[in-house]
C-alpha cells in the first residue's frame, strides 16, 4: 500500500493495538480528533476510550500516569502534541521513565514509547519546531530513534512499541503529509536500532536522520551532477548509535558531514564527530563537519528556512570537507 508518513504511523499503531491488548495510546486530542496531525485518526473509534485515551492537558501527568500504567503491565504509547511541549514532562522522562528499570534492578521494566513530532519547516509559531533529541540521547536508560520515511515509520513504531526499553520516537512532522511511499506489510524490517546506507557514494559520508535525510538525498543528487559522490546514511537510531555502518563508510570516504536541525552546539553531530574521530583518526582526510540549526532559539517562521540546514548549506559543508 502507498501511504504518507502519517498514515503509515497510523497503520503501524493500529497493528500494534491489534497485536497486543496491553498497548494503550495516550495524549491530548488523540481520540475523537485523531491527533492534531491525524496520526491516531480512527483508532479511538475502533479500540475504545480505554485504549486510546484523551488526557487532561498536562504532559507531566500524561507521562507520569503512563509510568504507572507500565508498572501495571501496560505498554503505553504517549503522544506529545509538539516537540516544544515535551519539557513539562521532562522530569518524568529523565528521572522516572529512563531510570525505572535501573533502579529496580530490572524488576520494573518501562516499555513505553514517547512519540514526538519534531523539527521545523511548517511555518508554525513558537515552540512548534524544536529538535530536542540530543537531550534525550544524553540520558542513559532512554533509547531515541527517528524515522524518515513511511515504510520505516510503519515498522519502527511497531518495533518501538515491542521494545522493552523506553523509546523516544521522533517523527519528522514536516513530512507527515508529504509524498506517499510504498509500505509492504509483508516485508521483514531491519532491526530498530540500526542505521542504514540509503545512498552509496565514495567521496564523503553524510549522516542524517528524520527530516534531513531527504535534504541529504537531494543534495547527493545535486552533487552527483557535479561529479561529487556522496554516501548518505540514515541514522534511524540516535541512542544507541549504530556506529559500525557509519565507521565503515567514513573509513572508505575519509570524510563525514553530519546534518540535523537541532542546534549544532552539543547536537548529535558533536557526539558523532567525537566518536568518528576517535575510531577513524587515521582515515580522516578532514575533520567531521556539522551542519545544523544555529545556536539561537528557533526563529520566527518567515526566516526559518535560513535557520534550517538546507541543500545548499549541506553542499557547502561537503565542499569544505572536500577542500580540506
Amino acid at each position, binding site marked *: 500500500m502507498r501511504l504518507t508518513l502519517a498514515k503509515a504511523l497510523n497503520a503501524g499503531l493500529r497493528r500494534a493495538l491489534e497485536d497486543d491488548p496491553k498497548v494503550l495510546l495516550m495524549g491530548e486530542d488523540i481520540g475523537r*480528533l485523531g491527533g492534531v496531525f491525524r496520526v491516531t485518526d480512527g483508532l479511538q473509534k475502533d479500540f475504545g476510550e480505554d485504549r486510546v485515551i484523551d488526557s487532561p492537558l498536562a504532559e507531566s501527568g500524561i507521562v507520569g500516569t503512563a509510568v504507572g500504567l507500565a508498572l501495571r503491565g501496560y505498554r503505553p504509547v504517549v503522544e506529545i502534541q509538539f516537540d516544544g511541549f515535551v519539557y513539562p514532562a521532562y522530569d518524568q522522562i529523565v528521572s522516572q521513565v529512563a531510570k525505572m528499570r535501573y533502579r529496580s534492578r530490572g524488576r520494573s521494566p518501562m516499555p513505553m514509547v514517547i512519540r514526538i513530532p519534531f523539527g521545523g519547516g511548517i511555518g508554525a509559531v513558537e515552540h512548534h519546531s524544536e529538535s530536542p533529541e540530543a537531550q534525550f540521547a544524553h540520558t542513559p536508560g532512554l533509547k531515541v530513534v527517528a524515522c524518515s520515511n513511511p515504510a520505516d515509520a510503519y515498522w519502527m513504531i511497531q518495533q518501538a512499541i515491542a521494545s522493552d526499553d523506553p523509546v523516544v520516537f521522533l517523527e519528522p512532522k514536516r513530512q507527515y503529509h508529504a509524498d506517499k511511499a510504498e509500505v509492504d506489510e509483508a516485508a521483514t524490517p531491519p532491526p530498530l536500532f540500526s542505521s542504514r546506507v540509503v545512498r552509496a557514494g565514495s567521496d564523503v559520508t553524510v549522516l542524517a536522520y528524520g527530516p534531513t535525510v531527504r535534504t541529504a538525498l537531494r543534495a547527493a543528487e545535486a552533487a552527483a551532477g557535479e561529479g561529487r559522490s556522496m554516501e548518505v546514511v540514515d541514522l534511524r537510531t540516535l541512542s544507541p548509535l549504530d556506529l559500525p555502518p557509519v565507521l565503515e563508510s567514513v573509513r572508505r570516504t575519509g570524510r563525514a558531514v553530519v546534518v540535523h536541525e537541532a542546534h549544532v552546539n552539543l547536537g548529535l553531530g558533536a557526539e558523532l564527530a567525537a566518536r568518528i574521530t576517535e575510531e577513524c583518526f587515521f582515515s580522516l582526510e578532514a575533520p567531521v563537519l556539522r551542519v545544523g540549526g544555529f545556536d539561537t532559539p528557533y526563529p*520566527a517562521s518567515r526566516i526559518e528556512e535560513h535557520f534550517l540546514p538546507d541543500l545548499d548549506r549541506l553542499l557547502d559543508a561537503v565542499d569544505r570537507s572536500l577542500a580540506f
Partner: protein
Amino acid sequence: MTTHPDPAARTADATFGPDLVEVFGPSQADGGPDLVQLLTPEGERVHHPDFDVDLTPEELRGLYRDMALVRRLDVEATALQRHGELGLWAQLLGQEAAQIGCGRALAPQDFVFPTYREHGVAWCRDVDPLHLLGLFRGVDHGGWDPAAHGFGLYTIVIGAQTLHATGYAMGLQRDGVVGTGDAARDAAVIAHFGDGASSQGDVNEAFIFAASYNAPVVFFCQNNQWAISEPIERQTRIPLFQRALGFGFPGIRVDGNDVLATLAVTRAALQRAREGQGPTLIEAYTYRMGAHTTTDDPTRYRLSSDVERWKLKDPIARLEVHLKRNGLADAAFFDDVAAEADALGARLRAGCTAMPDPDPLAIFEQVYAEVPDELVAQRDGYAAYLDSFEEAGR
C-alpha cells in the same frame, strides 16, 4: 503471632461527605446558579447582589465598539490566514465580552499576562493589532513592548505565564505598590489561561505561590468549554471556579458572554488584589464559537447544535439589543462603528500584506545581551555565505 486487622472489614457508616458533583454541579452545567450575570442573552439588564457596574451610555457604547472592532479584527485575521498571509490564527470569536470586560477593568499600571488568544485584551492595552498579525504571520514572536503596554508577550506553552504573572505580582509587593491606598499607584496583575490550561502543573503551582505570598494577581480563566477537541469534563468534574476553594482564595464564575458582568467582577477582583487582599480566580464562562485555530476542524468532535445554542448568547448581540432597546445608541452610532470596523479591516489587510519578512540575520539578534564570539562567528559566517549567493547571482 499477632493478627492484623482485616483489610476488607468496612464500617457501614463511613462517609466522606456528599458527592461534590452533587454539591457543586458538574463542570459543564450551563452556567449554573453561581453565574454572575448583569445582562441576559436577551439584552435585559439584571442585577446581582454582590456585583454591579454603573456605566454611562457613552461607556456602554465604548464597550460595544470594542467588541465589534475586535470581532472584526478576528474576522480579518481569519480571512488573511485563509489567503495565506498568516501561518495560523487563534480566533476569539464568541469570547469578545470576556476579553473586553476584563481588558477594560484594568488600570494603566496593571500588567497582563496573556495566552495566545487575548486579542481583545491586547486591544484594550493599545497593542497595535498588526503586531498580533505579525506574530501569526511569522515575522516575529510578538512585536510590542510588554513594559510600554503593561501587556506581556503571547505565551504558547500552556500555563507558563500564570507563574510569570504571580512572580510579577510578587515584584509589585516588593515595589510597595500594593495596598497603599493610592488608586493611581496600587497595581495588580492578570494571568490569562484557558479551561484546558487549568490541568497544567504550572497553573496549580501559580495558585499555590499566589496564595502563599498573598500576591496581587487575578487568575482569569476563559472557560470556552474546549481545549482543542477536549471538553471541559476531561479537565474537571466540578465547575472550574471552585478550584480556588482548595487553595484558600475565592473563585467566582461570571458570564463571560456578558461584558458588564465580566467588567464588574474583574474590576472588583483587581481592586481586591491592589488593596493587598490577594489572589482571586475568575472563571469567565463562555464558548469558543470558532475552531481552536485555523488549522482545526471542530466538526470532528462537537455538535453544530451546541454551537447554534451558544449563538443565542452572543456577547455583542446582547449589548446591541440593550443599547437599542433603551435608546442608548442611535443608528448613526452603529453606522460609525461599522465604518470604523471597515477601516480597521482595510488597515489590517494592507498592513499585513505589506509586512516585510525579517532580515535573515535577525536570527542571530537578541539571543544574548553580551553576544559570545562563537555566535558572532556563526552570524558572520552566515552573512558571508548569503553574500556568496548574491555575488554568484550577479
